[in-house]
């Protein structure tokens, strides 16, 4: 029989709370954390607002925080969320259990870039007067003088997963992936499979990301992916609403402790839910646009439900990808209808991003945590900022008010730039 995998610990650093409890309360109360960008002066950018993590101090979580002071926010958020999750699971003690059977799978993004000195160096190596190509040799000479070497060395893409392993003595399989907005859900799904296939007994899995930096916002603005509703940041993220105009960028981290069932039972761990289903597909369509009929999304939802041994009718709540972009929300709606048929209209669907914004590589894991809390608390968070129905989005999005609802299985979707589609199913644990 296939090894069963349960969730025994959860930790988050998000714009709406630095604990799982605070995050879920905010979600149920329909609060938002979206506001003007404070990380840098963005007042002339096409988009001037974001959903930022405020008041974060790594020292609250990690005793030797100074060691990580040069790390990017992605690494710092990951360490704080990882600490919470392991403490919650009762697995923080590095001498506890066989640590070579405990690993890390992180969906994470870039570290920081030294925007100030990078653009200064490029400007100084550019021809004076008329525009023309940058002189690369001169640029390298300026970089050697301007950049902070030790700081640069902490910004590599393998840094967060490596430091998580180091800080918490997780010596088992170590992986990191970057599949844009699907990354942390994919990390969780593949970590599930690592445990199922016997390569580990516990995986600390999830994601961490911040793209609220000048090049991140510049890049997304050039792609016209972000909402530009600068006069009303708090209502800008409006998934499934007719007037939606792009996503609101967020940041943060989430980590869950995935554990093989017998391993969890043997140490009498608290079981929050069972992770029962995983589906992973590619759209093979375009760089940023989803396939118009949602063919990848349809198949990954169907695969995840089948992997859990369930039928669509068993799903009680769908935590949607729901980005608040025109393309995603209508395509996702169509895909849900294709998978669920008539019952699609009866299943409550909501988008955490209406309140949290889009945490990119960290989005999926935080939304899974919210899904698991909804399962446990019997409460479905709303989609806020929902005012104007879109004929292309005609399902039950739990508009603006949370709903009490007891259910047994939740489906969580994450679809990323590049065409990766991931669906996860979590179920109330029944022995």
């Amino acid at each position: 029989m296939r090894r069963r995998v349960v969730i025994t610990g959860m930790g988050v650093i998000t714009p709406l709370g630095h604990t799982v409890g605070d995050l879920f309360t905010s979600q149920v109360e329909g609060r938002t954390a979206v506001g003007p960008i404070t990380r840098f002066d963005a007042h002339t950018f096409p988009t001037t607002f974001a959903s930022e993590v405020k008041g974060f101090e790594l020292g609250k979580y990690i005793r030797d925080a100074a060691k990580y002071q040069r790390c990017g926010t992605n690494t710092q958020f990951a360490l704080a969320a990882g600490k919470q999750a392991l403490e919650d699971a009762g697995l923080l003690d590095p001498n506890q259990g066989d640590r070579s059977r405990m690993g890390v799978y992180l969906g994470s993004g870039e570290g920081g870039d030294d925007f100030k000195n990078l653009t200064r160096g490029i400007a100084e190596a550019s021809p004076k007067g008329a525009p023309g190509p940058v002189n690369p040799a001169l640029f390298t000479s300026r970089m050697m003088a301007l950049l902070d070497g030790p700081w640069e060395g902490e910004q590599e893409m393998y840094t967060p997963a490596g430091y998580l392993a180091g800080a918490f003595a997780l010596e088992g399989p170590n992986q990191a992936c970057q599949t844009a907005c699907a990354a942390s859900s994919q990390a969780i799904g593949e970590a599930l499979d690592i445990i199922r296939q016997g390569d580990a007994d516990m995986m600390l899995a999830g994601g961490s990301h911040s793209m609220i930096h000048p090049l991140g916002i510049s890049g997304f603005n050039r792609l016209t992916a972000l909402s530009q509703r600068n006069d009303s940041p708090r209502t800008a993220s409006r998934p499934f609403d007719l007037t939606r105009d792009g996503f609101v960028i967020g940041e943060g981290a989430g980590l869950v402790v995935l554990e093989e069932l017998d391993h969890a039972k043997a140490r009498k761990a608290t079981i929050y839910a069972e992770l029962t289903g995983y589906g992973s597909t590619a759209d093979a369509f375009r760089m940023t646009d989803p396939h118009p009929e949602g063919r990848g999304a349809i198949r990954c939802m169907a695969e995840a439900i089948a992997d859990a041994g369930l039928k669509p009718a068993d799903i009680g709540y769908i935590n949607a990808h729901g980005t608040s972009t025109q393309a995603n929300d209508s395509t996702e709606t169509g895909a849900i209808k294709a998978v669920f048929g008539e019952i699609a209209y009866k299943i409550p669907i909501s988008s955490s991003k209406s309140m949290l914004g889009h945490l990119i590589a960290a989005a999926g894991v935080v939304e899974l945590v919210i899904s698991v809390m909804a399962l446990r608390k019997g409460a479905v968070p709303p989609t806020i900022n929902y005012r104007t129905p879109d004929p292309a989005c005609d399902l039950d999005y739990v508009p603006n008010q949370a709903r009490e609802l007891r259910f047994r299985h939740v489906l969580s979707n994450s679809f990323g730039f590049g065409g990766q589609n991931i669906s996860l199913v979590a179920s109330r644990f029944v022995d």
Partner: protein
Amino acid sequence: MADNTTTSRRTVFTGLSVISAIGSGPAAFWEALVAGTPGVHRITRIDPSHLPSHMAGEVRDFSAKQLIEKSYRRTLNAMARTVEFGVIGCQLAMQDAGLAKGRVQPNRIGIEFASVMGATELDDLGPASVKALKPDGTGPDMGVWGADGLGEMPPLWMLKYLPNMPACHATIIYDVQGPSNTHIAGDIAGAVGLGEALRILRRGAADVMIVGGSEAKVNPLSLSRFNLFAQYSRRNDDPEGAIRPFDRTRDGTAPGEGTAVFTVEELAHARARGAKIYAEVVSVASGVDRGKTGPGLAKVIRNALKAAGIAPTEVDHVNAHGLGTTKGDAFEARGIGEVFGKNVPVFAPLSRFGNFGAASALVELACSVLALQNSLLPGTLNHWDPDPACPVAVHTGVPRPIAKPYAVKTSYTDLGQCSAIVVKKWSD
């Protein structure tokens, strides 16, 4: 430790592409390996004289425009060099495997790619940086950047550099609709991607997986950054002899660039379509050696051997990362030495073409796959003076016949993330 010995789903390499400083395509690459051709030279793409280290394994004859699928040529303007290498690598591997688009049912083929965020091309940010620079020259005026600078960036700027773009383009070109993942765990990324492909094949989610990696660090920004924090060799008067794996006089490594891509296939599927087989891929393990002292790496190697169901004595050679860095080589040698002693020769191919980073595990693995296929193990370049701190026996000099069926490929990062791959000479 993903393995396939306990199930009927054996997995084999049926396609291979390599683009590197010493040659592109399996045949030319193998020829260069046997001939001992060095690929690390003084950098020509830019004038490197302002950098402490002047060397790299540059690919000098690469034209994505000539190689890309015609229908896809217009998308090249959305690809940085890293992405170009990756996309072309996937094309060449699929061609080598005889897998034209539609040959495999779209749902039954997936991709696991290893990459990193590309470094920005300077000219992409040139006009914006010039406009925004404050009058005192200390950095950008953010107000000016937002109002007048940002609009000068190419609209698709972000997509040129995202790590998952090689996989994205490959899925579009070949209608690959199975799982698609992009691995970013530094120098073990390609290995753990291969491990994941094995798990995906074993759980039955696909019949064919594209497994590859690409890197292009020979650019002004990456060279500057890495010279500041990585140990790059300063032996600028002897580029070809600069990277000295496990040698007492080693003083650092040098970047390489290019791609290596395999198609990995479930054996029955490969047989049914009469595919040629390069080698069997048996197991992959990963883990973390937190102190970078050796026992953690040794444990990962043992896990891979255990998953393969073999003893150290069945291994022909260990294919090491062999960066040529002072601490890195000593760490890796201690891990290998703890498992194999000096009984199994170590082969370190990186000194020929430089460090491929995320793609390093796979381009280095390609050397052993070709060695097993050709029954000949090339020697390690630039290892003359064994270092007592590196307790391994390095195979040098002329190629020697392959003596045993298995090879083990090790990789690691400077944070102690480790991987080991076991491959086997193909036989029924």
